[in-house]
C-alpha cells in the first residue's frame, strides 16, 4: 500500500488496515519519520517537501515490489507526505508485516533506506537565515549500497 498525501496520518488506523483480518501475521515493524527542529545548527521554523507527482508513486512501487520479492511478507505500507510541515510533524510512515519478526525489521529498514535515496522528494528548510534546500548525504547512499550485499540476519 502506497499513499502520497499532504494530510497527516493516524498510525494506529494505518497499521490496523495493514494487518486487516490476517491472523497469520506475527509482527509489524514500522518507522515514523518526523520533522526535527534543529537542522545542523539552525532552528527550523518549517520544512516544505516538494515531489514529482506520478514519478513518486512509480519509484515507490518499485521499492515496495523489491521488498516483497526479497522477503516473505504479508504486506507493506509506505505513506509519504508533501507540502509545508512544522517541527514535530510526521513526514513518513513505513511498515512491514510478516509471520516472523526478523524479516519485518529487515524489510522496514530496507524500505526507508531506499525511500530516502530514490523517491523524488526535495526538502526546503526555513530558518531565521532564510530558506535552503537540503543536500543529499553520502551516508544515505552508503546505507543503500549495503543492501546490495545480503546482510546477516
Amino acid at each position, binding site marked *: 500500500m502506497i499513499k502520497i498525501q499532504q494530510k497527516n496520518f493516524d498510525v494506529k488506523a494505518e497499521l490496523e488496515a495493514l494487518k486487516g483480518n490476517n491472523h497469520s501475521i506475527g509482527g509489524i515493524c514500522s518507522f515514523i519519520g518526523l520533522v526535527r527542529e534543529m537542522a545542523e545548527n539552525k532552528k527550523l521554523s518549517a520544512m516544505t517537501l516538494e515531489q*514529482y507527482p506520478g514519478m513518486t508513486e512509480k519509484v515507490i512501487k518499485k521499492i515496495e515490489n523489491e521488498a516483497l520479492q526479497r522477503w516473505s511478507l504479508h504486506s507493506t505500507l509506505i505513506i509519504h507526505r508533501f507540502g509545508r510541515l512544522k517541527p514535530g510533524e510526521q*513526514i513518513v510512515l513505513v511498515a512491514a508485516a510478516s509471520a516472523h519478526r526478523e524479516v519485518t525489521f529487515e524489510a522496514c529498514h530496507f524500505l526507508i*533506506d531506499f525511500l530516502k535515496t530514490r*523517491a*523524488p*522528494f*526535495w526538502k526546503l528548510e526555513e530558518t531565521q537565515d532564510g530558506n535552503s534546500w537540503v543536500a*543529499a548525504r553520502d551516508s544515505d547512499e552508503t546505507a543503500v549500497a549495503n543492501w546490495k550485499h545480503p546482510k546477516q540476519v
Partner: protein
Amino acid sequence: MKIVYFAWVREKTGISEEVLEKLPDNVKTVADLIEWQKLRGSGFTDAFSDPKIIRVAINQEYSSQDHPIEANDEIAFFPPVTGGR
C-alpha cells in the same frame, strides 16, 4: 517535448514546466539538452552551470545524461533527492 524542473533547478530557471516544440537538430542526448539550456539566459546558465550536480529522469525513470532524448519525452531536471527522513 515536455520539460519539468524541481527544487532549486525550478527556482533558478523560474519555470516548473514547459513544452518545447522544436529543438536544434544537434540536441540528441540529455547532455546536449543541458548544454543548450545553458544558453537560454541567466537563470538557466546558473541552474545548469555544473551538470554533475543535476539529476535527470526521462518519462519518470531515472536516466544518465548520455541517454538519447525523443520528441515525445517528458524530461525532468532536479537536484539529488532527499526524501524519507
